[in-house]
């Protein structure tokens, strides 16, 4: 099945990133855009922009019949889902199959299996791969609370259909268990339309390490090494890197081979990521498998030299993998920073505003995957992530230095972003030594958001002198009064 025209059913930075590779491969390209959505880089790259509609912009991107209809109408023979939205929706994949449009990703059966955390976990466990001690509500709902208790504290409650940390609650004390189960169930019902839960033992100071895998659907699976994603706020990653500073060479091979084994067990097709929880003692457990391209895939591209979207498109077109395992290197070190419109000093509250000035860093080993344009508007319609800054260098210390320089030179004016906060993380001695866990940002919250040097005089001067009306008023005060100056009321 050759692919000649592709619709990217996504937006923002990932749509732009997928379109670039699709174009480079000579495909005709199209992308979606909601009627009320700001123009972004993707709309400038795509040959065609298809307007979609819905009660909210997000609802439009989740509207399966509308997206399938858009693909048919423009004559697209393939759809790339990006991440989020419909990327892990088995019904969407089935609807495309029925319409005769190729989905760039795995089969709907695999999405179904891996999308259900409980089934996925059971599948993985049955085949001898490591999973954490747990209690699954569905096994016997009547005894769920009792069995959860038996797992011991601290424990973690998760919606079985969940992802992205939504609905996850850590319980440290038995008295809070039942109330937290109720809250998690409500969140699960609302986000995923599914209130079923499971509980697993909460590993103290865990690291989050994941492995990029790629399969051709014909039994061949390779891995593209690991990514360390322990720097998270609210269970969501904001800095990712590869290689992981935690792993020895033997552990690295072990975790990567385990991931590839899991992917082989489902005869995986396309790009996927197997996520693990990694304990301080070096043991690791299967967490989940994401059946799509990840936000943080660029760090893998930087160290391996492979374009993962190109691999996805090859596999979707039936051309298979372009490399054998031995051909996939892990050169140097790469770090990704997620640039988000949010106020790190106010509980990561999303920020909105107009982008008045945008100047992205450039240079050797610096890559920016951006979803914004100068003059654009940041609203709360979508996720607060604006862009990703990715750096590559020979080793970890140089990559950190390069990332710091680049993020300090990333100028986004008009909306509050987390660039200063990201720089503070990179500057932290524990980050430098690699001694972090998924709780790092919460533990170090005060240090990371501490006010720096007091620059208020400089800032006031800059704000006052750039206020044209103020300066013009001041200049018009007669000479005599000027000399008086000083404080008057």
């Amino acid at each position, binding site marked *: 099945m050759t692919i000649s025209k592709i619709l990217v059913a996504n937006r923002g930075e990932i749509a732009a990133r997928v379109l670039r590779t699709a174009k480079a491969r000579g495909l005709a390209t199209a992308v979606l855009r909601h009627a009320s959505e700001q123009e972004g880089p993707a709309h400038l790259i795509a040959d065609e922009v298809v307007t979609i509609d819905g009660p909210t912009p997000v609802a439009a991107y989740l509207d399966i019949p509308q997206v399938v209809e858009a693909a048919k109408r423009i004559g697209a023979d393939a759809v790339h889902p990006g991440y989020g939205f419909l990327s892990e929706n088995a019904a969407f994949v089935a609807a495309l199959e029925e319409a005769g449009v190729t989905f760039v990703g795995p089969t709907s059966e695999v999405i179904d299996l891996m999308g259900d955390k409980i089934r996925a976990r059971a599948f993985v466990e049955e085949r001898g791969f490591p999973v954490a001690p747990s209690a699954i509500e569905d096994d016997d709902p009547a005894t769920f609370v009792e069995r959860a208790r038996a797992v011991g504290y601290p424990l973690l409650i998760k919606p079985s259909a969940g992802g*992205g*940390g*939504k609905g996850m609650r850590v319980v440290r004390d038995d008295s809070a268990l039942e109330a937290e189960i109720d*809250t998690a169930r*409500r*969140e699960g019902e*609302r*986000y995923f339309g599914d209130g079923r839960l499971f509980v697993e033992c909460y590993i103290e100071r865990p690291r989050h390490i994941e492995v990029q895998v790629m399969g051709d659907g014909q039994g061949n699976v390779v891995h593209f090494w690991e990514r360390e994603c322990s720097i998270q706020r*609210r269970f969501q990653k904001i800095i990712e890197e590869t290689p992981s500073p935690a792993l020895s060479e033997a552990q690295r091979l072990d975790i990567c081979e385990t991931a590839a084994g899991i992917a082989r067990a489902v005869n995986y097709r396309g790009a996927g990521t197997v996520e693990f929880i990694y304990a301080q003692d070096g043991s690791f457990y299967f967490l989940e498998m994401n059946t799509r391209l990840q936000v943080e895939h660029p760090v893998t591209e930087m160290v391996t030299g492979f374009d993962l979207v190109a691999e996805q498109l090859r596999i979707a077109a039936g051309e298979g993998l372009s490399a054998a395992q031995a051909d996939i290197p892990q050169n140097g070190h790469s770090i990704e920073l997620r640039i988000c419109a949010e106020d790190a*000093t*106010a*509980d*990561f*509250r*999303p920020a*909105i505003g*107009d982008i*008045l*000035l945008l*100047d992205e860093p450039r240079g050797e080993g610096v890559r920016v995957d951006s979803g914004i344009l100068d003059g654009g508007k940041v609203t*709360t319609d979508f996720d*607060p992530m604006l862009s990703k800054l990715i750096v590559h260098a020979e080793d970890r210390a140089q990559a950190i230095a390069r990332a710091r320089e680049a993020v*300090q*030179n990333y*100028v*986004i*004016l*008009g909306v*509050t*972003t987390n*660039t*200063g906060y990201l*720089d503070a993380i990179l500057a932290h001695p524990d980050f430098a030594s690699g001694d972090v866990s998924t709780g790092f940002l919460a533990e170090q919250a005060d240090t990371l958001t501490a*006010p*720096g040097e007091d*620059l*208020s*005089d*400089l*800032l*006031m*001067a*800059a*704000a*006052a*002198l*750039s*206020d044209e009306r*103020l*300066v013009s*008023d*001041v*200049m018009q*005060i007669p*000479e005599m009064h*000027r*000399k008086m*100056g*000083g*404080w008057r009321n």
Partner: protein
Amino acid sequence: MQRIFQIDGEEAECWLSHDGNNMNLNTPDGVIPCQLEPTGTPGGYVLRMRGRAQNVRLAVGPDATFVHLNGKTYAVGRVDPAERLAGNDSGAADDRIVAPMPGVVVSVNAKPGDHVKEGQPLLVIESMKLETSLIAPRDGVVAEIPFAAGDSFGLKATLAQLAPEEE
């Protein structure tokens, strides 16, 4: 000409004047000559102050001036003195529950006229993909909850109002 700025949540007052040669920033700590010269790059200036020349990038937004300085970006809020003097006459601060962030109302758990206890959840909102319960700041009677489940609201929107306390 007086200005009030907000930097890192703190208000700071200053006064800009001109002595025939220099612009002066008058702060409670003293008078500091200062100068801002465009460099030619978009939003780029050299700020001269205290014997130092500092490269800055800046942009003037509706409520704040954004300044990129020493590798960090700052939002310098501009406080309108008139607005501040007018104060808030719409009730005591603890009568109102103000949106801590933009979001969507998940559920409303009280209605106007209800007697509520301090700490009682009045409504549940969702922002940043997380649920937050907003609780009554004191015992009292609900005067107004202007949003219904499913409604979205902006930052600082009044989500619930208690009737003024009877003295």
